[in-house]
Structure formats: C-alpha cells, structure tokens
C-alpha cells in the first residue's frame, strides 16, 4: 500500500517536477527581494526570455528527433544583420518592412535547410554539422557586415522589438504566437507524431512508413525559421545589428529544453516544458540581477541547475 503511494508520488514528481521547481524558485525570489514580484519586473522577465524562448521552441523539435543544433546563435545573428541592412532609415537599401523581415527570416531558414539536408540526407552527425554551420555563418556575418554594427533603423523596424500591444511587449506577443504554433505542430499534428516516432526509434519509424529523412530535415528548417524571427526581434530590441550578437545562445536554448524535461536522446518531451525551462532560467537570471549578484556567479549557478535537471531527468527515465 505504501509502495503504490510512493509510486504514484514519484510519477507525479517526474511529470510536474519542473513546475514545482519553478514555483519554488519563484516563491524564494519573491521573498528574497521586494523588487521581484512587481508587474514591471514580470513584464521585463517575459521580454528578456522571449528571444531565447523562440529559439528554444525550435530547438525542442530538433532535440525530440534526437538531434542538436549548435548554430542557432549564428543564424539569429545573420538574420538580424540582413533584416537590419534593409531597414536603415533613409538608406539606398531600405525596403518595406515586410520584405526586410522576410529576407532575414529566409536567410536563417535556408541555413536551417542546409543543416537539415546534411544531417538527414547526408547522414552526418548533427553535433559536427551544426558546429560547422555555426562557425561558417558567423564568418558570413562578419563578411556581410564588414565587422561593423548596423544602426539607424526606420520606425517600423524599431517597433518590432521596442513596441508593445496593450502594454505587452511585442517580442512577448511574438513568443506567444510561436508557442501556440509550436504546441499545435508538435503535440496535435500528424507531423508532431512523426517527430516523436523518429526520435523514439528511427528504424521502426521508417518501417512504419514514415519518411524519417524528411522529418529530420523539417525540424532543422523549423529551427531556422525560429532563429530568423528571434533574430529580427532581438536586433530591433537592441537597436543595433552586430556580427557578434547572440554568441552562446545555443547553450541557453538547449538548457531550456533539457530543464523543461525533453530528453536529449530524443523521442520524449514537449514545448510547454521548454517554456517553463526558459522561464526558470529567466527568473533566476532576473532575480540574481536584482540582488546584484555578479554575472560570473550567475554562470556557475545556471550550470548547476542544468546538471540538476539532467540528473532528475535520468532518474525519471530509470524508474
């Protein structure tokens, strides 16, 4: 009798562990400092995690298939540079907002496609491919921008990252929309089932009639699209496009996904977990900032949390 109660408890813990952890940290921070639990700060947190969050959404798809994408930071950066280039107010290259944004997103999507094709059709390991893409695209960004930042955007472009709708920052709205699309795509669509099937057992998925190569290519394309959108939004927010932007974004994105409960070995997890993972990282960073903890310590703390999350994930799988 006691055993079954314990079994049930451990099952609930494994499913909702991340939410409980989030609630715990949230409560602790609210008590630790009065500046945390205020409406402006909450909105700040949401806006801060939006850019990373969008990237993490794409990363979720990729990790569920058992892959990984280290190039997200670079894709984001290039998308920002390209869209910025066409949005400099009064310049010869200025284009209508829609075209500029589309150009940026398209560039990131194309590199996502290249990632996907090399991994799915070329059968090359995702780690190496995306590490290479990461370096190549970073180089392209430097060449494209001549190593210099782009500033002086037109109002339309500025609005994307700096404006708000009904007091909600536009990046948060974009994040929300992307989240909705991701949930529908991963959880409720046929494509989503294929993603999980391929991640769970690629051979069995193929033997069940699924085009595994196509699925694997598509998730990297989705990753590219997300990077493109995040790139435009972030560049707009920072009011400058820099070839050094978004370095290290891949680690935060992967951390959000893993902390959120998606398994690195694939076939298991979800987008909602990723969001909570991103929020957890977000509030910790935010809380530590408010309490004036140096960013050096923050790195240590963030790393420890990732270890803890992976440890709990492993324990969950074992039981």
């Amino acid at each position, binding site marked *: 009798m006691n*055993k079954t109660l314990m079994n049930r408890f451990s099952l609930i813990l494994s499913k909702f562990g991340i939410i409980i952890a989030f609630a715990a940290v949230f409560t602790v921070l609210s008590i630790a400092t009065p500046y945390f639990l205020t409406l402006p700060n909450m909105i700040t947190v949401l806006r801060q995690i939006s850019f990373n969050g969008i990237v993490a959404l794409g990363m979720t798809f990729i990790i569920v298939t058992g892959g990984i994408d280290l190039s997200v930071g670079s894709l984001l950066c290039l998308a920002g540079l390209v869209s910025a280039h066409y949005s400099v107010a009064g310049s010869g290259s200025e284009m209508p907002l829609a075209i500029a944004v589309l150009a940026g997103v398209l560039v990131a999507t194309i590199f996502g496609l290249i990632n996907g094709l090399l991994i799915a059709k070329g059968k090359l390991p995702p780690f190496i491919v995306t590490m290479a893409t990461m370096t190549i695209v970073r180089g392209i960004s430097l060449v494209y921008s001549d190593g210099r930042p782009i500033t002086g955007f037109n109002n339309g472009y500025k609005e994307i990252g700096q404006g708000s709708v009904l007091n909600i920052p536009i990046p948060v709205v974009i994040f929300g929309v992307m989240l909705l699309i991701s949930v529908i795509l991963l959880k409720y*669509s*046929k494509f*989503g089932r294929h993603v*999980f099937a391929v991640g769970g057992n690629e*051979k*069995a998925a193929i*033997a*069940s009639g699924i085009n595994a190569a196509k699925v694997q290519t598509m998730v990297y394309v989705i990753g590219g699209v997300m990077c493109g959108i995040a790139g435009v939004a972030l560049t707009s927010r920072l009011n400058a496009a820099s070839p050094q932007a978004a370095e290290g974004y891949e680690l935060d994105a992967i951390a959000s996904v893993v902390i959120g409960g998606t398994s690195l070995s694939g076939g298991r997890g979800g987008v909602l977990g990723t969001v909570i993972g991103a929020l957890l990282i977000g509030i910790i960073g935010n809380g530590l900032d408010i309490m004036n903890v140096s960013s050096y310590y923050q790195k240590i703390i963030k790393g420890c949390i990732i270890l803890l999350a992976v440890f709990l994930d492993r324990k969950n799988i074992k*039981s």
Partner: protein
Amino acid sequence: MIMKTILSMNHICKQFPGVKALDDVSLEITEGEVHALVGENGAGKSTLMKILAGIYRLDSGELILDGETVKFNASIDALQHGVAMVHQELMPLMDMTIAENIFLGREPVIGKSGIVNRKQMVQDAKVFLDKLNVDIDPRKRMRDLNVAQMQLVEIAKAISCKAKIIIMDEPTSAITKKECDNLFVQINELRKNKVSIIYISHKLEEIFEICDRITVLRDGKKISVSEIEKTDVNRIITEMVGREMDMIFPEGTAVPGATLLEVKNIAIKGLLHSISFHVRHGEILGIAGLMGAGRTELAECIFGLRKRDSGDIIKEGNLLNIQKPIDAIKNGLVLVPEDRKSTGLNLIANVEDNISVANLDNYTKYGLIDQRGIRNSCNDMIKKLNIKTTGYGQIVDNLSGGNQQKIVFGKWLLTDGDVIILDDPTRGIDVYAKYEIYTIIQELAKRGKAIIMISSEMPEIIGLCDRVIVMCEGKVTGEIGKEELSQERIMRYASGIAT
C-alpha cells in the same frame, strides 16, 4: 545419488510500476541439472532470471548460491559468482567483433602490459564457436550478424565464462533444428561437467527432450515443480494457462480465391537468386527454410525496406513501384518484422502511439490528429488481441515480449492492408498467445487477406499454411501443397536436397 542443491531462490517478490511481476516465487536448482522454467508471457520468468543474473534487484526474498546467501548489485556480481545469462532479447555490442563481445571485460592481455592480445582473443573465440559448430569469423562485427547468429555468440560467451549456472532465455527461438540439436549436445556436455542450466522456453517438445525438472509460473506465482518423467505436455499446458487446451491450431475455414500478389524474379546479388511466387486472396502461404536462406531479406524487399537489384511486384495485375515502406503500405502490403524491438516498436512511446503510428493519415484532418478516434481504435485493438496492458498510456518497454508482439500486430491490423507478411510472428511467445495469434491469422485469411508467413517452427507451418514454399541459400527449392506437408519434406527442401 544425492542431488546437491546449487541454488535456492526463496520467496522472491518484485514490483514494477503498475505490475506485480513476482509474488512469493521460490526456485530450487540442483547441481548438473537442466531445469525448465515455463509460463505464459508475463508470467515472470524473465524477471526472476534477471534477478538471479543481477540485472534487477529483488524487493524481498533471498538468494542462496552454493550454500551462501548472496546479494547481487550488478550483473558483474552474478558473473563472479558463476551465474551467466544468455538473454532472450539479445544485447550485443554491435560495433565490436564477435571475439570482443565474447571476452568483454576478460580480454586476454600480453603479459602485465594491459595491452589486449588480439590474436589470442580471436583464437580463443574460434575454439568456443567451433564447439557450437558455428562457422563464422570471430573478427566479424556483431552488427553484420543476423538474430540467430548473435544468439549463438551469446551462448558461446556463457560457455566461455565457465559458469556454474547458465540461464538460457528462449535459446532456440531463432535457431534451426540442426543448431538446436547441436545446442543440446553442448548442454549434455555441460551437464556432465556439473554445470546447471535454467532453461526458459515455450517449446515444450524441446523441454521434454532435454530437461530434468520443470517449474511452472503463472501471473507471477509459482504453480508447480515436477520431474519431467512424472508429468506430460498437456498437464504442463494446463498449469501454464489454467485451462485445458485441446486444440492447438484453430480450424481454417478460408477458401483461397484469385491471385492477389505476384512476385517475379526478385534478386539481390549474392543474397537472392530470382525468387518468384504468388499468393492468393484468403491464402496462408508459408515460407520455410533454414537460417540464412534469405527469407527475411525477401520480405524486406517486397516491403521496400531493402533495395533489390531486379524483380517485379505485381498486385491484382498492376505493377507496383515500391522503393520505400510507405509505397508498400499505400498499396496494402504490410510487414510484421522479425525483430520487434529494433524495427517494430518505439519502446519509449506508449501503446496508443505504437498502434497508431503506421496509420496516422486516417486519423488526420487538416493536419491535426483525431486523438479520440485513435484512442477508441487502440482500445478496440487491445481487446481484440487480448493485449495484457494497464491501458493505452502504458509505455511499451514495460510489456512482456508476447504482448509487445501483439502491439506490432495491432499496428498493422489497423492499416487494414490486404497482403500481410509475417516474419517469425510467434517468436518468443507463449502457447496461449500463439493460439490467439493463429486465430487472428485464420480470421484475416477468411476475410480474404493474403498472408505470407515466414516461420522456422514446423508445427505452425504445417498447422496453419495452405501452401508452403521452401527457400535454401537464396533460392526457392520447393513448393508443397497442404496435403503433402510434412516436416521431413520441408527439411529436405530447406537443406537443398533434391527429392
């Protein structure tokens, strides 16, 4: 002669999430005996043995090995105490060679240097392989072997470990009669050397041939332990399933109709030589043969899992273009594969996901999944196939081998294909579940489906099939009609001996 007890497993209990796998089970093994452990799928045999082999930890109870109470925390403990296990679901290191697998952890080294003596390792491995009459180069990688060959390597490994107790879990499920006879010779040798063997198998004829005593488990409990001469097959079956089994094969009432599928001149260089056959509506066509005959490869070709060099697949007069499994599925051809864990199932997904995965198109509207529809179909399938599971949400990895196989069946039945290829569909499945699957196969034939059944089990080929083609080394060597079916005839064709 006093029989010395070498092993006592007393009052063993083991619980998994949602399933009580073992409920106060006791087992006693004497030195040099071959002790059979039987029971339906899910009865607890594999679990009990995994506890003995140190892979699982018992919840309560004790293990007494050669007079001393032991506690195994890892399989290395068991191995050091002289307990070796040859698993039902083989787990070799695929990218390492046969020799490396056999001597894993015990590699012969050059003097004290710690450097592996590869030449010695290969030589020693050859000795054990020769003992089992297996003619494979020990330097070959496990990945390049088929299921049957991998199993023989596992047995060689156990023998090489000089174990006092060797647990064999379904050792003959994927090997042919010749290899099986060979294995029994080895078992007798081991018996003479006072090695005990715990023999888990569903093949009762074999058990009565080789074993001294037999313990029956059912639903996690021990039902009986008897000496082989003092019991008989019917009594054992009754104890296993709790009911009398008077008929092993259901009556086939299907009447074969027009030709549904025709396969012409399928060839793969070095593997298949111009294979042709046909199968009709409502017909169960058996494909018999020894290991290495090429039957699985043929099935994979027809299903689009393997590229062929030449050959045509014609269904109802139309030439089909099959390059990938999806092409086959779209044309109503389905394949229940030989190895369910690697090709048939997504082990980390649940019952529902596994059953629906090949048929998602039929449950998709505007790209979105009709979850309720899938769930209903899944529940229907669970009932129809009598799958022992806690529900649609159970992770498939936690199910027993037989129930896993039923899930694979369920997946393909859901697609409603009309040519159903089965590759060793009852491998590692208990007597009662086999009967259920035979009934399903007969039912499908009655509905007009064409069944192609690859099998190495003579009784089921003779009991089920309307017609049998026999393959040997990549060629069709014979075709036998129902009236002329006999074990001898099949074996003759399978060995390539002309009639």
